[in-house]
């Protein structure tokens, strides 16, 4: 579970500060995909950045974990936040952001080798899950290829597998379909939804394309850094 509580984030802008996120409260439950939509510049990526501990909010809390065992990620030191990302958060970027020198398989293996005194058992566990995830995203056959040998959709699928290979509790996805055609985009959205449900991940997904709204369990619309009205029209999935 991830819960953003009353988050405010501002950026310096000349002498003033612009408010990118304005008192946002948002909850993503385990095994659900929570969509965040809104016009360009409304603050969607900023919300994800706060949730990902990539930037510390001016105020508010980022609770990650389950009932008895939650931590406020907004309060963590830089190195603790890095460790949190390494272990409990998965991120899928707008561009696939794969490393050009690594094969598809190695893109996943690297998650076990990010330093910071990762436990050996954890490394073994991640390595053991690599093949499973390559299979889950349907790319076992292409595991030996480098990013430049893969299509945009395949790259994004590898990025999703990378986001999940270390079994994070929270998956944060920023515009995963923006570089893809509609069909490929729909496949990616369905893949994220399926894996989210199978793995019980709490997924926050930014999209400004509502074509894929049916795969979302929940949808909030952000305008000028504020949530307008929770989208009640999204049909609840049965799972």
């Amino acid at each position, binding site marked *: 579970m991830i819960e953003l509580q009353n988050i405010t984030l501002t950026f310096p802008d000349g002498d003033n500060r612009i408010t990118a996120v304005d008192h946002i409260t948002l909850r993503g439950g385990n095994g659900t995909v929570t969509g965040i939509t809104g016009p360009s510049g409304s603050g969607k990526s900023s919300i994800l950045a706060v949730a990902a501990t990539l930037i510390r909010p001016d105020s508010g809390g980022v609770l990650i974990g389950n009932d008895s065992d939650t931590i406020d990620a907004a309060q963590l030191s830089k190195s603790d936040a*890095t460790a949190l990302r390494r272990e409990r958060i998965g991120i899928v970027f707008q561009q696939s952001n794969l490393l050009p020198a690594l094969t598809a398989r190695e893109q996943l293996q690297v998650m076990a080798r990010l*330093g910071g005194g990762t436990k050996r058992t954890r490394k073994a566990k991640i390595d053991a899950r690599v093949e499973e995830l390559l299979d889950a995203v349907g790319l076992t056959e292409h595991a030996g290829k480098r990013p430049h040998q893969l299509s945009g959709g395949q790259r994004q699928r590898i990025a999703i597998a990378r986001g999940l290979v270390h079994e994070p509790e929270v998956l944060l996805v920023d515009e995963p379909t923006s570089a893809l055609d509609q069909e490929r985009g729909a496949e990616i959205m369905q893949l994220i939804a399926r894996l989210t449900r199978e793995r019980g991940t709490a997924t926050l997904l930014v999209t400004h394309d509502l074509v894929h709204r049916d795969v979302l369990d929940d949808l909030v619309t952000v305008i000028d850094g504020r949530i307008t009205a929770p989208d009640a029209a999204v049909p609840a999935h049965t799972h």
Partner: protein
Amino acid sequence: MARAKCASGKAFIMFVAWRELRFARGRFLLIGAVVALITLLVGFLSGLTGGLAAQNISSVLQLPGDRLVLQQSEDSDASFATSSLDDDTLQAWEQADGVESVTPVGIAQSRAAASGTDDRIGVALYGLPQDASGIGSNPLFDLTPTHDGEVGLSSGAAEDLGVAVGDTISITGNDFTVTMVGEDLWYSHTPVIVMTPDAWSEASTRVGGTGEATVLAITGDADWEAIGPGTGTVAETPLSSLTALEAFQSEIGSLGLMIVMLFGISALVVGAFFTVWTMQRAGDIAVLKALGATTGSLVRDSLGQALIVLTAGISVGLAAVAGLGSLAGQALPFVVSPLTTLAPAVVMAVLGLAGAAFALRSVTKADPLTALGSNR
């Protein structure tokens, strides 16, 4: 996170770095080749410097003692070529407080030829006393003959003259029997021949010298600064006395300057390469940080990568130096020794790493926030 505190580290190092090396092998080969070439140049210059230095000073370095005493000429610095020390000076030093032993050494340059031939070569004549006290086995003093009509030759002299033990050679009109051929010793680019003090004295006067000792090799612990001026001499440590050898400073100085400049160039080139390379992958570094990579592991990877490139380049360069050096050694004064190969290699590696460390700023400064959004 508390649950991540267990250390194991090592196994994860360089996962990405190695693969980048392979992936961008063209670029890394290029910079490796540059490092190899600079190493080759530095190695060559070092070997040449070492070789020239050995030809200049190897015999002087064998002079025993804590200090070498030279005549202090009035208007210029002390010089092996002009120094002449009479008996009074010798006695003054022998009687000085704290002086344990004084060995008078004569050095003169002349020409020699194998008897019966006219092929004269330049040689350095050493006049050494038979009973020099306190000297153990010493390649120079081991050549000292017992009789005035005998000489000991350094191997270079024997080779150049084409003579062996038992042959005779002529020096300044006198014939001498070769009784010994020893190690390769040189003085001021001429091979060494050792004679008795009397024979040397005579030879010295024949080539325009005074026939008196050139330098005193002194052991003991005296007030060197005080005794010197009173006797018109200066006492130098064996190493600092080398500057009293003509051409030594200028030879070694200009070659040394070239070596130092090559060191600087290699640090700059390696630094520039890794700065550009690191800037090129700044995006990847931001992504890795966003995924949870520690800055420490990224820094380690970057330095490790640089170290691999440097080690490979330097090794290839060193191999070339060793190979070409032994060839060059037949035509040039060239020394292949740890001092002329490994020492410059270590300096290259250290300076290269310093250059690479310069690029680390882009690693530590990379902001994982930039991985998010579309601004890559």
